[in-house]
């Protein structure tokens, strides 16, 4: 019997249904309550260790739910290069937990030997697209998986940008063979902060490349929207999600909630709202 067959759930594509981001405060509740969600997504870096309560909890969760591993620390757009030790730990996590999806961000994270542990924005230029695509390719080859690359929220614009965000992401897909994780909240936040057209971005992305969607809450600080993942998804983002689903078809959709984390029941209820929209889209397709 293979190791895969010992899993409580089969490997394979994550269904086009709603899932939740797994955070440590919900490790026990997830196993106790076994909510009806299609998949869980965990931050890869939280499961880098060989032992400890977190990795044991994810092993148990993985036995009951399909898994997506979502990296927040690799920063594949860093011009100083890929951190080989970090990449090695990502590979170890992939081998250990056998996720159905593996994602990273279209961002950079370190320069001059210092890491900023944030999703720093890349200028939409040919040079940045080439570098990100090159490093995504190297990472995919090393990890042995196709990566989903997520668009990030932006609070600043680069004056010398020559591409739109969708052209930039399309270029990275074309050069590296990666897929995309579309964060609808990030599109909304960036468009509001930088005066861009969120609908044009969704309309411009390569349709077949988008494999997963993220939804999350944001907050307004002064005149700026901050991608804080600390509240419910706002109505404007739900509306944009409907537009995205209409264009890309039903896709695995994740609710992210990382600050002021509510009860598991509240998180699951938020995912049900996404599921309802997906069900409507499935109904149209039937």
């Amino acid at each position, binding site marked *: 019997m293979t190791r895969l067959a010992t899993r409580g759930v089969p490997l394979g594509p994550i269904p086009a249904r709603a899932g939740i981001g797994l955070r440590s405060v919900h490790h026990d509740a997830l196993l106790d309550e076994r909510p009806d969600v299609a998949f869980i997504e965990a931050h890869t870096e939280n499961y880098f260790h060989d*032992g*400890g309560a977190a990795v044991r909890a994810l092993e148990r969760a993985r036995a009951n739910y399909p898994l997506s591993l979502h990296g927040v620390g690799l920063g594949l757009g860093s011009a100083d290069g890929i951190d080989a030790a970090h990449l090695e730990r990502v590979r170890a996590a992939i081998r250990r937990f056998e996720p159905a999806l593996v994602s990273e961000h279209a961002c950079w994270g370190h320069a001059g030997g210092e890491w*900023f542990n944030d999703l720093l924005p890349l200028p939409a230029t040919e040079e940045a697209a080439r570098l990100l695509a090159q490093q995504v390719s190297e990472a995919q080859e090393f990890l042995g998986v196709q990566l989903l690359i997520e668009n990030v929220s932006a609070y600043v614009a*680069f004056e010398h940008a020559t591409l739109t965000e969708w052209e930039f992401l399309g270029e990275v897909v074309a050069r590296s063979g990666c897929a995309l994780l579309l964060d609808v909240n990030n599109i909304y936040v960036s468009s509001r902060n930088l005066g861009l057209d969120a609908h044009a971005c969704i309309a411009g992305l390569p349709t077949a490349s988008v494999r997963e969607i993220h939804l999350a809450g944001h907050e307004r600080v002064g005149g700026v929207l901050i991608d804080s993942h600390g509240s419910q998804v706002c109505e404007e983002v739900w509306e944009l999600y409907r537009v995205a689903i209409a264009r890309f078809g039903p896709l695995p959709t994740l609710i992210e909630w990382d600050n002021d984390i509510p009860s598991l029941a509240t998180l699951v209820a938020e995912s049900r709202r996404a599921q309802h929209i997906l069900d409507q889209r499935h109904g149209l397709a039937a």
Partner: protein
Amino acid sequence: MASLRELQHSFAAALRDPTVACAVSPPANLAIYRNNARAAFVSALELTFPVIRRRVGDDYFRQLATRYREQSPSRSGDLHWAGRDFPAFLDEHLRGGDYAWLADLARIEWSRTECSVAVPLPALSATALARFAAHDFEHLLFGLQPTLKLLSSSYPVFSVWLANQAENAPPVDQSLGPESGMVLSRTDHTEVRHINERMFSFLSALHSGLPLGESMSRAHLEVEALTGALEFVFAEGLVSSLTLNEVPLATK
């Protein structure tokens, strides 16, 4: 036009120093990234050093963490290890003052972080000793659990750590003096506990790879006390391997 690498280095410099310019618009929003980076780092330290935070209060903890970051910025995309040098920073920063003991308290908390993610090995019971002849006992090497850390301090930091598992714990009387202890992760929790000075010396000697006989000498442990000491190390599941020291032929 600046290269991508030049742009990222200029962005990074602007994150470190608000007076440095970077070609983004609006430049004021760089403060969001600056705050995010600082908050992520401080938050990681808060998770690792909850008792230090409880003792010094949120504001002073943030000050200490921010100063520490200036000296030891994050060197990884994984913040779990960002606190590695925090005890040494506190040592240097607080040396000679009333709060010098915080450095050793931080060492306990850092040990908890390390032990809690190590993988415990199967523990041997005392019956494993039966595999060896009595005259070889003094040459036995004890492999101790990778989930074990031993610490000693000139201050009563184990008492402080234990007392501060509850909120609003009263200050611990510093005249309690030096203490030794151990941090040990088991399957479902991590223990912090006192051990006496002699047991600390004995375990430290075993941990450093000295054979049993020499470890007893280091700890001034008499033969009569050995049974009790071995009962402790086996009953607590501290021993993961027993091997006979290879004694060079010339000394046999």
